[in-house]
């Protein structure tokens, strides 16, 4: 179905649908339910140099049309990802996958990205400089244009695969940060990561999350994500993976009109595990409804 294909940093995707990092594990839970080769690609769980247990529980809280998470980058570490997860993933997914990388220093980012860069299965490196749930990590790099440029340039110098930098919405000027990453050599931008939030339990008068704060995702954040994708599209020429609250084929089209070349789907997978497959199936019908013959034609279409 060529009308759904898009090109993300030089790699052709059968469709723009990309399950977002942290909501799709390494793919196998979903592969039990449907053939995940129908996806454009997916971004696997945020990987760090060393194994991480993550934050204490409760790590999850509900909110109107969304959820907070404070998982804190639980992952087995890059060596185990390469020796155990990637071989298992190969059994269920034969397309290039997006490797989501986190770190606590520039050296760690460079180390982890370089280790994954040489893996044949990896199509793109997605540099997560936006995790709000770990102290001193991730988000510290994502909140200033200078730091974002520094880590992007350092990783760029060491990796050959397309480099996508994932930005935090918890900033005042997203466009400036995106531009700094582009200038430092990024091949693409993905956004948004979760919005920092919290909940308090009325009965105990304590915060619901053990980590106090967590990241908000789900339909509640769609308008914020659209606005930030819109601003980023105006500021950069490299492709954008737009995400935040996307839950239907209509949302996918809206995200692309704002400027996204591909579309990430996060929390929605947790509530309806078939959602990505279903969105891919319903996209052609929704495109017909809105007179779209080819998805490529609508990227940034709302910018006039």
């Amino acid at each position, binding site marked *: 179905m060529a009308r759904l294909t898009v090109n993300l940093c030089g790699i052709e995707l059968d469709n723009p649908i990309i399950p977002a990092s942290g*909501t799709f594990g390494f793919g196998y839970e979903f592969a039990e*339910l449907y053939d995940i080769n129908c996806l454009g690609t997916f971004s696997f769980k945020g990987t760090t140099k060393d194994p991480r247990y993550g934050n204490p*529980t*409760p790590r999850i809280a509900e909110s109107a049309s*969304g*959820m907070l998470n404070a*998982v804190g980058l639980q992952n087995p570490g890059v060596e185990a990802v390469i020796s155990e997860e990637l071989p298992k993933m190969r059994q269920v997914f034969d397309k290039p996958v997006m490797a989501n990388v986190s770190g606590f220093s520039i050296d760690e980012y460079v180390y982890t990205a370089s280790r994954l860069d040489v893996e044949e299965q990896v199509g793109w490196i997605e540099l997560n400089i936006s995790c709000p749930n770990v102290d001193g990590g991730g988000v510290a790099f994502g909140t200033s244009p200078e730091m974002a440029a520094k880590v992007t340039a350092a990783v760029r110098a060491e990796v050959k695969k397309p480099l996508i930098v994932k930005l935090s919405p918890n900033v005042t000027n997203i466009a400036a940060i995106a531009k700094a990453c582009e200038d430092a050599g990024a091949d693409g931008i993905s956004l948004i990561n979760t919005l920092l939030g919290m909940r308090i339990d009325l009965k105990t008068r304590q915060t619901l999350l053990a980590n106090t704060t967590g990241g908000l995702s789900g339909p509640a954040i769609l308008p914020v994500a659209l606005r930030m994708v819109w601003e980023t599209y105006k500021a950069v020429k490299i492709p954008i993976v737009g995400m935040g609250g996307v839950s239907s084929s209509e949302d996918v089209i809206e995200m692309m009109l704002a400027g996204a070349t591909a579309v990430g789907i996060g929390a929605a997978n*947790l*509530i309806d*595990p078939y959602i990505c497959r279903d969105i891919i199936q319903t996209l052609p019908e929704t495109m017909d409804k809105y007179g779209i013959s080819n998805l490529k034609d609508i990227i940034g279409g709302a910018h006039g």
Partner: protein
Amino acid sequence: MKESIFRILTNKQIAHDTYEMILRGNTEHITRPGQFVNIKLDGFYLRRPFSVCDLEGDDLTIIYKVVGSGTEKMSTLVPNEELNLLTGLGNGYDTKSSGKAPLLIGGGAGVPPLYWLAKELLAEGKQVSAILGFNTSNEVFYEAQFKKLGVSTLITTADGSYGIQGFVTDALTNLESFSYTYACGPEPMLKAVYDAAETSGQYSFEERMGCGFGACMGCTCKTLYGDKRICREGPVLVKEEIIWQG
């Protein structure tokens, strides 16, 4: 795991703030007592997890306590309404290691999964006893159902308004020897049973869940056998692996 639509057959109050709901749908992925289902409710973003209390062909029973707005909403649902369920979640209890005379210990909203477990153990020819603990007399449920199965059942209430006064562990002395322990209930109860019971056993835990099927890492706990997701490698842990967090 399977996602499918279930139709409500009955939804009735059986004790104070406690309801029994029977649902009909595709149950083929539910394989073991101790597993749970994750229910989508209109108006709520996250699904709500509930243990399978009983399974008869296509009919699934859950028992839920009203503790917040989701369970409040469930209590207003009427027969023939449909619900979207993820079924076949979690590892469930292993009945094979129970020995000849297993003891089931449940507290409040932890009692439901022990009912189906009791049926399975009895079907394997085991001699099953149970201690079911509640706060007070109007919260007691399923005593008659357990007894009808042939389970020798003791009830405790914290205020002594019914059965034995005290906690489930206070009833342990009323029992002859037992070979194994299966427990489900609030964490302080599980810890008390863990400390009091001399036998090995299996303990079912709760955690706040994002997905219920292993994708989000929201429900992880530490065990002596490595990190586990309560929704996938749990909710049932064997006694030997449990690490109690402060």
